[in-house]
């Protein structure tokens, strides 16, 4: 071990293991996480001998699929069946296992992160039973397609149509324009064979809003795209190059009626559309994804600052005092200013994510009982938290990179790849400025309520203080 690092570890004034346990949520959680990581990372063939960056675009994808299969199996084998759901959640809360195996993410990410949650959130009981059985066994690989070439965050602007034909009891899926092509979903290009597609439903000649459909994209044996389905990959990006982002277009492709996911809205055989009792029920999934993003930002920032701080302890440069030799760059106060805020921010985001998770579960439980009182508050705070944490993490990760001088520019430092992963969060799952304006809408409403003497939700209650005093 480098001597400077040895001496730093001797100087440390607190028990490192105690802090690790605190961050994990207890000694048992640390033990479980380490056990899982050890088991998975010791799987033969999972860690590359040849750095991924020296492979071609196509080779990177093929290598990522190979590793995705190994990784999935290793995770399954390493799972401790005796752990409770909460213990399982604690085990993976801080784990960045996928980031270790896939520098640019797994082509299966969307199956777990979006396809399965979409089925759980939108399918009725019968549909859920059938599709979850297949998806959880990986008999099928799915993704979630909402964003189109011409529309992203503005969901009502989506152009893909699903027109119900009551004669055949089918939906006709169609992409009427180039801009209506689905664009961006991970796994979509060459990995997934099923997809939850958000499309504008028309029945009995009337618009019935944006609804979810589960659609088979590829033959289960040959993996060839089905007739009327156009699929492809969208090309190289700043990061996430192994996640297999794709495009998807429909040419009057027909699917049976039961392929519309009907938990929240239904189309009957004759084409009668039954509206969801409350469209707000679907907000839950969106909020959950934002909770995951805030926690992910905390973990990736921790990873970036670990690299930068250790390097800053090893690297010696310049002279603070004449003839005193080159100091560790960590002794420069400007370096401390760049890095220590990243450590504090990672803690701040992690604790905020835990708070947000608790609130999410409370609101979800309330929703099941028909109580939606706290949903707008949760939505408002989740929107701005996703935006501010992803902005701050991008800026601080980039600062970690530049704090390592020229060596931080090397892909082998992994800092550029971490930046690629975190900066994507600024624009995915709701573009940040749009999300900030959604929070602003709640703030303006709360401000007007305060002026009218009405009570405010806890996170905005301070807005009434100044008004009271006035």
């Amino acid at each position, binding site marked *: 071990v480098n001597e400077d690092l040895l001496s730093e570890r001797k100087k440390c004034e607190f028990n490192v293991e105690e802090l690790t346990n605190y961050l994990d949520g207890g000694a048992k959680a640390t033990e479980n996480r380490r056990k899982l990581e050890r088991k998975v990372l010791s799987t033969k063939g999972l860690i590359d001998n040849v750095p991924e960056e020296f492979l071609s675009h196509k080779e990177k994808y093929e290598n990522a699929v190979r590793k995705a299969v190994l990784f999935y199996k290793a995770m399954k084998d390493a799972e401790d069946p005796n752990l409770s759901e909460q213990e399982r959640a604690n085990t993976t809360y801080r784990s960045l296992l996928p980031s270790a195996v896939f520098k640019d993410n797994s082509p299966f990410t969307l199956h777990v992160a979006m396809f399965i949650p979409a089925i759980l959130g939108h399918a009725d009981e019968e549909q859920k039973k059938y599709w979850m059985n297949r998806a959880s066994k990986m008999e099928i690989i799915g993704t979630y397609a909402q964003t189109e070439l011409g529309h992203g965050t503005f969901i009502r602007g989506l152009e893909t149509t699903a027109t119900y034909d009551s004669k055949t009891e089918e939906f006709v899926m169609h992409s009427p324009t180039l801009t209506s092509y689905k664009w961006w979903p991970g796994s979509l290009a060459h990995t997934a064979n099923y997809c939850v597609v958000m499309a504008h439903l028309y029945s009995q000649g009337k618009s019935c809003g944006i609804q979810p459909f589960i659609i088979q994209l590829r033959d289960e044996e040959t993996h060839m795209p089905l007739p009327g389905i156009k699929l492809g990959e969208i090309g190289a990006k700043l990061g996430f190059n192994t996640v297999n982002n794709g495009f998807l277009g429909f040419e009057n492709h027909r699917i049976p009626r039961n392929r519309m996911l009907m938990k929240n809205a239904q189309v009957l055989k004759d084409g009668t559309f039954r509206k969801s009792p409350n469209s707000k029920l679907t907000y839950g999934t969106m909020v959950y994804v934002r909770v995951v993003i805030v926690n992910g930002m905390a973990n990736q920032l921790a990873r970036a600052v670990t690299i930068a701080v250790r390097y800053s302890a090893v690297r010696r440069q310049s002279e603070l005092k004449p003839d005193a030799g080159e100091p560790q760059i960590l002794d420069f106060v400007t370096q401390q200013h760049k890095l220590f805020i990243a450590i504090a921010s990672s803690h701040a985001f992690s604790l905020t994510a835990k708070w947000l998770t608790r609130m999410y579960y409370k609101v979800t439980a309330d929703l099941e009982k028909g109580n939606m009182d706290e949903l707008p508050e949760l939505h408002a705070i989740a929107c*701005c938290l996703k935006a501010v944490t992803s902005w701050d993490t991008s800026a601080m990760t980039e600062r970690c990179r530049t704090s390592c001088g020229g*060596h931080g520019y090397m892909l082998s430092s992994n*800092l550029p790849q971490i930046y690629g992963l975190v900066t994507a969060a600024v624009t995915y799952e709701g573009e940040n400025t749009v999300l900030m304006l959604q929070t602003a809408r709640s703030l303006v409403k709360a401000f007007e309520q305060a002026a009218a003497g009405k009570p405010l939700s806890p996170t905005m209650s301070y807005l009434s203080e100044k008004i009271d005093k006035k």
Partner: protein
Amino acid sequence: QKWDNSVDGIIKGFRRVATGKVASAVASMKKYIKRGLGPEDAWNMSSVQLVAASEAHCRAFILSTYRSEVDRTTGSLSEPLRRLMNELVQLYAIYWTLEKLGDLLLYTSISENDIRELQSTYEDLLGRIRPNAVGLVDAFDFSDQILNSTLGAYDGRVYERLMEEALKSPLNAEPVNQSFHKYLKPFMQGKL
């Protein structure tokens, strides 16, 4: 209200900034509506202020949550670690105070003396955290495989790893690349 340099005082200050910014954005929208704009256009015209108001609200929220969660969860920790966790909260609060001075000067009673004192406390905090910096990142407990970095491995063999990785470049597999014979040599010898 008198400015207070404590973390609680800073949280109050950030909330005043958020309230001030929301009030200002609302006033701006009203002004545009009075001038004849529809509510949607007035919203669009005020949207830069609205985003700033959201950011101020979010910063106040993160800061107060960070503070309250550390208070709530560190009771059973050893004294040195609890102290360090509180120093990080203080560092976070002061960092953002110094970053957002313009807003605080506009909406709170923070003074030049307060700012000088905060700057000095901030520099003092950096010094206090310095001996624990490596310990703090070690505590994140990332294995070398998860860090996947030549610069950040636990043993600090930075320069050795940089060289080992460089040698994996396919260009280093042969001493002379074929492009020399195909392009460079004819070009340099004027035979193109």
